[in-house]
Each structure stands twice: as structure tokens, then as C-alpha cells.
């Protein structure tokens, strides 16, 4: 007995219902529904992924073949044993100190820069016209869009080779990031203390210093310490373009294919990153006690 199609069925489902052995509600839904936004989105995503792989002409053979595995194995074997001679370890430790100093100083300057830029970039109260908000936000976005490495490459032209270019690069990029974070934190602060000072006719800067800053300072310190964790990793690699520290040493020895020296540098790099992570975490815990 053919199932009678329901009156509000569309022509397609009615046709399907008339010809199919199962009533329409037992059929699985169509795989691609032209009206469904999620379907189009999935299709676009698949297209993007497939197009990426196809257009890049990836050298699958290069890393999937036995040959590649063997050469990879040989390559990795060259890392051991790492060079632990005292002279070299001394050099690496000094480079590590340079990297640490770069990251710490860069983050500190970035915090100051971020604070200075965050004040015009935030709307401190509902009545605040905040003329400078949009241009300052553009500036902050430009600063943080350009990665540290690109900043370092640009600054090397003015500052010459060496860690100062790296420090300034970190300061500029992180200044953009922190400026944006600080501005958002300042806008989210409860307005009670500021309002009561504004009722007394106190000016913007003093309202900021007496009401906003005390409330938001722990959060700012927390962001700054969190960014330090990121910056130690960034500082370690800035040397690859010539900004000093462990990166410069690494790229130098890798260029000469001195893999056991490279292994030592990599190990010290990982150790430095782990130490800074732990230090930053404990400092953040101590500040928020």
C-alpha cells in the first residue's frame, strides 16, 4: 500500500514519498541542503583545505619515503652527543643571558608603551568622547599585526646587528598586544570609584590615576608576566635574523652543520623557556595572593 504523502510535503518529498518504500520520515536527510548555511560553510572549508594542499605542491615524497626517513634519522643522529665542552657551554650560557635580558627589557618597555597607549585607546566612562580611541586602536593593531621577527628585520636597518634591535622589536610588537589588552581591561573596570570622582569635577588623568589604575593594576601585571613567557620564546628566535642571543648562535652553528653544538643550544633554549614559564607562573600567583 503506497503511503499517502502529507499535505504540506514539498513536491520533491512528495515525489520521493510516492516512489519510495519507506515513509518520508524514515529516510535519512539529504547530505547537502542548498538552504542550509552550515552545509555551505562545510563545503567552503573542504574546498579551502583541498585547494591548499593541491596548490602548494607539497613534496610528499620528501618526507614520506624511506629515503627521507633514513636521511631524517641520520640527521637526528648527528645531534648526539651534544657538545658539552666548558668553553662552548660558557658561550651558550652568555647567549642565554642575553636572550633573557632581551625578553625582560623588551617586555618591560612594552608594558610602559602599552600603558601610555591604552589611556587614549579606552573609553574611560560613558560620557567620555574619547576622540583618540579609533586612531590609537589602529596604531595598536598595526603594532601587533607585524610579528616580532619582521620588526626585528626592519629595525636591524636602523639599529644595526645585535640585541638592541631584538629588544626594540619585542617592545613594539608586545606594546601593541599589551596596549590592546590594557585598554580592554580598563574599559571593563567597575565605574563606581571613577564616577564619584567625576562628580567632584576631577579631571581625566587624575580619575585614571586614583580610580581606574588601582583597580586594574593586578590584571596588567598578570598580562605582562604572561607575555613574558611568550617573549622569551620570541627572543630566542629573533637572533636568526641577526638580533643576537641564542638565535644568532643557533643559526650560525646550524649554517655550519655543527649539529652537536646545535643540540646544546636547543637544550639550553628549552631549559630557559621552562625556567621563565615557572618563574612567570609563580610571580603571577604571588601577586594575586
Amino acid at each position, binding site marked *: 500500500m503506497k503511503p499517502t504523502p502529507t499535505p504540506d510535503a514539498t513536491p520533491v518529498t512528495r515525489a520521493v514519498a510516492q516512489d519510495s518504500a519507506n515513509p518520508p520520515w524514515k529516510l535519512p536527510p539529504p547530505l547537502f541542503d542548498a538552504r542550509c548555511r552550515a552545509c555551505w560553510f562545510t563545503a567552503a572549508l573542504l574546498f*579551502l*583545505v583541498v*585547494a*591548499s*594542499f593541491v*596548490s*602548494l*605542491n*607539497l*613534496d610528499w615524497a*620528501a*618526507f614520506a619515503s624511506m629515503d*627521507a626517513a633514513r*636521511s*631524517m634519522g641520520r*640527521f637526528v643522529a648527528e645531534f648526539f652527543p651534544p657538545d658539552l665542552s666548558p668553553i662552548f657551554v660558557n658561550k651558550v650560557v652568555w647567549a642565554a*643571558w*642575553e636572550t*633573557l*635580558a*632581551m625578553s*625582560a*627589557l623588551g617586555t*618591560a618597555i612594552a608594558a610602559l608603551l602599552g600603558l601610555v597607549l591604552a589611556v587614549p585607546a579606552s573609553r574611560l566612562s560613558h560620557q567620555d568622547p574619547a576622540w583618540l580611541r579609533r586612531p590609537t586602536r589602529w596604531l595598536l*593593531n*598595526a603594532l601587533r*599585526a*607585524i*610579528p616580532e*621577527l*619582521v620588526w626585528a*628585520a*626592519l629595525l636591524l*636597518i*636602523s*639599529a*644595526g646587528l*645585535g*640585541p*638592541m634591535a*631584538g*629588544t626594540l622589536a619585542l617592545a613594539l610588537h608586545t606594546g601593541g598586544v599589551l596596549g590592546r589588552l590594557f585598554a580592554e581591561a580598563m574599559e571593563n573596570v567597575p565605574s563606581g570609584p571613577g564616577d564619584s570622582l567625576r562628580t567632584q569635577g576631577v579631571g581625566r588623568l587624575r580619575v585614571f590615576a586614583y580610580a581606574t589604575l588601582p583597580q586594574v593594576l593586578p590584571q596588567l601585571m598578570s598580562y605582562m608576566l604572561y607575555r613574558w613567557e611568550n617573549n622569551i*620564546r*620570541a627572543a*630566542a*628566535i629573533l637572533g*636568526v*635574523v641577526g638580533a*643576537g642571543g641564542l638565535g644568532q648562535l*643557533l*643559526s650560525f652553528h*646550524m649554517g655550519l652543520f655543527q649539529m652537536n653544538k646545535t643540540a646544546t643550544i*636547543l637544550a639550553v*633554549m*628549552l631549559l630557559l*623557556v*621552562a625556567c621563565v614559564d615557572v618563574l612567570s607562573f609563580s610571580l603571577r600567583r604571588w601577586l594575586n595572593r
Partner: protein
Amino acid sequence: MSAPARDPAFASRMLWLCLALVLLWPLCVATEFRLWVLWEPENRKVTANFVRSFWPLVYNAEFLQMLVLETWRTVAMATAGVTLALLLAVPLSLLATRVLSLSALSGRMDRWPAVLRWCVRATLIVLRSIPELIWALVFVRVVGLGPTAGVLAIALTYDGMLGKVYAEILESGESHAAQTLMRNGSGRLQAFVYALLPSHAAELASYTVYRWECAIRSSVVLGFVGAGGLGQQLDNSMKMFNGGEVATLLLVFIALVALADRLSAWLRKALA
């Protein structure tokens, strides 16, 4: 009690200030931080020339064509890298998450499962701690210059990041549904698909989209060591002191990042 005359906190504040200054000095020495060097006549001249060469921007047809191609390459590198990272991150995160532990259903997790999970987590942490530039440097020597090295580097580093955060997301929130399914005999994968995935899918997808946007930035950086894309063009133009090209490339890059940022924010809002 008579009025106190001095501020008791003043002494400790001065102490902290002095400590900070004392710490600042060796930092400045170690980084050779001499800001006035930027104002030295030769440096100023070089900087001025370079900045002046930014204008006029280079925008002839040939350059723009190359630009579009390289931008697509950068995006493709990021997409391919994140896709490969996902392939490895999903199984690793499932292995690392404590919510899918069968032995933990009855109290404490058994010894060996706990050790396995700890090992997987340690692997993920190590993978994400090594900057992708280092991986790229290594791979460039193994597979040669080109996007392959970049894709592999992004895949490995982002595998660590995605895996760790996926495991944390799966552990956050309620695991009651998953545990009930597992108690009633369903397999771990079934518990994941039927219980964990529905409640966390939005957050997982949101974080993946955000990481994709970060990957675009990374792939530009990787271009500096030979992985192709906008980064390599930027490196070439800078080495030739061609300010016009550098300026155009920077603007395109800022626009690309802003676009990806906007797209990812929209996607994340749609997913939430």
C-alpha cells in the same frame, strides 16, 4: 593614639624601586641598549633613506600578481599546517584527557594509564615549546626550501598547542554524561562522540579557528627562513632595500591579518 607622621609603606616602596633600578642596569648592558645609537648621523641617514623609499609604493601589475599568489601561498601553508596538526592532535588529545579514563571511573586512575597520559602530555608540551622557526630551520635542511618545510613546522608545533588545549577543554565542564556512558559499557570513542563532543564542539571549533589565524602570522615568519610565501618576499625586498615593495608587502600583510582576525571573530561568534 596620636596622628602618625610617616607613611609606613614608603620605605618598602623605595626598596622595591631601588631593586628594580639595580636589576635594570645589567639588563641594559646585556642587551647593548643604547637608544641614542638610533640618532647617530649614519644611522639616521640610513633610516631616513629607507623610510623615504617607502613612498611611492610599488604596485605594478607584475608585482601585484606575485603578491596575490604569495598571499594565497601563505594562507594555504597555514591551512595545510593546521589540518595536518589536527590529524595528529585529535588522537593525542583523546589519549591525554583524563575524562576518558576507564580506570578512573572507580576512583583513582590506575598506575599505567596515568603514566601513559602523563607521557602524552609531556610530548605535547615539548612539541609546543620548540618554536616553529627552529623546526623550519631543521626541515629546510632535510626537505629543502619551499612550503613543505613550513607546513611541517606549523603542523608539529600546532599539534602540541591544539592537543594540549583540546585535552584541557575536554576536561573542563561536566564529565557526567561521558562517565555514565562508559559506566554502562560503551567504548571510549563512543563516549567521546556521544557525550563530550556535543557539549564542547563549539569551543573546540572556536579555538581551532583562532589557531588558524595565528598560523597565518606564523607562516609569514617562517617565510624568512625559506618557506616561501609573503615572508620570503619580505625578506628578499628588505635585503635589496627596496622600500616601496617592503611597504606594499607590510600593508598587504596587515590587511591579511585584519581580515583573518575579522573572519575568525565572526566564525567564533557564529559557533558560540
